[in-house]
């Protein structure tokens, strides 16, 4: 072999060595970083609060987490959505510190959590939300009653076309109502079933979206659609209907006042759940959420704030 070639090969193995060393170094660095995080969370230097649940509340929870960084820089709140059911399921397993839910804990879930973790779930009401009924902005309809909603959404309900509600959508041939709904882990889904459908099941064939925002998005791109979602998710492409309890009653839009004085018929409370009495940083975080500062964020995002800590009704 020529000298040049040997040199080349030497060079190559040298390069290989460098790459291997670099890889090992990187891996070590990653592992190190991972260890650091967990060891820090155990000592009191850096605390991570796991927060999971309601898609309706995910924007709100993120805004809280973001703002709380300035209040307590050593606390990191990790927020994820998935639906109230997902958050509660995680709470039952004991993998989250705080579960967000846009519905109340069912007695069966309460028992399961107690059985599984030995601690009783504790509820904090942190705000209210009007469940807004969205239609496309070109839809001439302005008001709807709870009963009409039930006829549209519930199994066996009779309303399937917009003409049956007395409106014609401009520029549309087929005026079949496109029902936009939520996946069954959603607290919004269960809330609607309980308070609008009288616990009847939903009609099959609704488009079940995986998030509050997707509902509004699909409605805004579909002239014949109707959908339900949190009132904070309104966009310029959709219209919010006024809702009346029954035909003949006055219909109200979901505004802060109407939700607070209970004029708006489909409003619900937003909850946080912890396992047992919250301790340490989690307790401080919840106290902060219920303070003026935290509640201001609730209002900014289009929800309705509360001030007092709600015990279980």
């Amino acid at each position, binding site marked *: 072999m020529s000298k040049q070639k040997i040199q080349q090969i030497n060079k190559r193995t040298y390069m290989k060595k460098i790459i291997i060393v670099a890889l090992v170094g990187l891996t070590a660095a990653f592992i190190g970083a991972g260890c650091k995080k967990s060891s820090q969370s155990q000592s009191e230097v850096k605390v991570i609060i796991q927060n999971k649940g309601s898609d309706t509340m995910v924007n709100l929870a993120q805004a809280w987490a973001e703002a709380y960084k300035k209040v307590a820089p050593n606390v990191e709140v990790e927020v994820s959505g*998935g*639906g109230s*059911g*997902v958050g509660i*399921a995680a709470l*039952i*397993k004991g993998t989250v510190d705080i579960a967000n839910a846009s519905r109340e804990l069912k007695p069966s*879930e309460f028992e*399961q959590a107690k059985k599984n973790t030995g601690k009783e779930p504790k509820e904090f009401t942190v705000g209210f939300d009007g469940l807004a009924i969205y239609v496309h902005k070109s839809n001439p309809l302005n008001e709807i009653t709870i009963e009409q909603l039930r006829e549209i959404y519930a199994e066996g309900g009779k309303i399937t076309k917009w003409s049956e509600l007395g409106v014609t959508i401009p520029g*549309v*041939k*087929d005026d*079949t109502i*496109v029902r936009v709904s939520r*996946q*069954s*882990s959603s607290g919004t889904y*269960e809330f609607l*079933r*309980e308070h609008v459908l009288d*616990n*009847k*099941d939903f009609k*099959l*064939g*609704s*488009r*079940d*979206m*995986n998030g509050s925002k997707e509902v509004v998005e*699909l409605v805004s*791109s*579909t*002239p*014949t*659609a109707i959908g339900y979602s949190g009132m904070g998710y309104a966009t310029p492409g959709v219209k919010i209907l006024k809702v009346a309890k029954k035909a003949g009653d006055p219909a109200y839009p979901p505004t802060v006042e109407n939700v607070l004085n209970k004029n708006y018929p489909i409003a619900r409370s937003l909850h946080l759940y912890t396992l047992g009495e919250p301790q340490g940083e989690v307790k401080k975080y919840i106290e902060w959420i219920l303070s003026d500062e935290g509640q201001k964020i609730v209002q900014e995002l289009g929800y309705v704030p509360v001030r007092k800590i709600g015990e279980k009704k």
Partner: protein
Amino acid sequence: MNAGNYKSLPKRPLWSIVGEKILEVIIRFSGISAIIFVFAIFFFIFREAAPVLHSPNFKLKEFLFSPEWYPTSAVNVRYGTLALTIGTFSVTALAMVIAVPFGLGAAIFISEFCGKRVKETLKITIELLAAIPSVVWGFIGLTIMSRIIMQVTGAPVGVNILNGGIILALMSLPIIVSIGEDALKAVPDSYREAAMALGATRWQIVRRVLLPAAKNGLLAAVLLGVGRAVGETMAVLMATGHAVHIPHGILDSVRTLTANIAAELGEAPERSEHYRVLFLTGVLLFFITFVINLAADLVIRGIKKK
């Protein structure tokens, strides 16, 4: 290396013999491992699903033949998966109707008709298509495709079978093209030369010589494409509209078995009935792919016997 003195090969050292044996064991294990994994997975899924078979809420007939899927109902729980099964079949079928002609056509073109430069560019581009994550495909379906479909067809909702079918077709194309191309390439050149010597045109060569010679490989390509389409989750979850509903046309929304499992497994409390039924739909899915593969295998055998 010195190639000249192979006559006086030294005795093989012990480590080489031992090493070879070890390597043999490893390779043998890799071969069997596929079978072990398949059975282990099937066992696990079935073990999670089995207890629900005795539940009073569960009826096998309803599970297979009822379209009513109400796993979390407050008054009347029903586990019917017919609508989901039909959803899976309809989206997959449409995807294959689109992907098979395009995929095999592209494979034939790349392997037989185009120049070397074009061939390399096309191959790289098509393989790039396979590198796009399914979430991105789903997002394209949800935003871009749905708008185009609404404009072109006038459908009230853009997320439907057509949308999911097109997205799945695009996702399974790279597999069909690259495996199909490999199958065609594996046909010995002597076949082509012989056909050419007999005066066959290029098209005749493809149709009469190459396609029959490569048909096993091409069928495998199509089957892997089908497998990809049946098993795909995220993209169909986003592009098909996720509605439990027996479709009446390709502009209706559907929900597939995979999307249903993906959307609901996270919320279903562990070991609850809902959780177990979801695993049972997994068994159903397993069974469907098994039947498809078996059928294809039998078809290939049939062809061989002739």
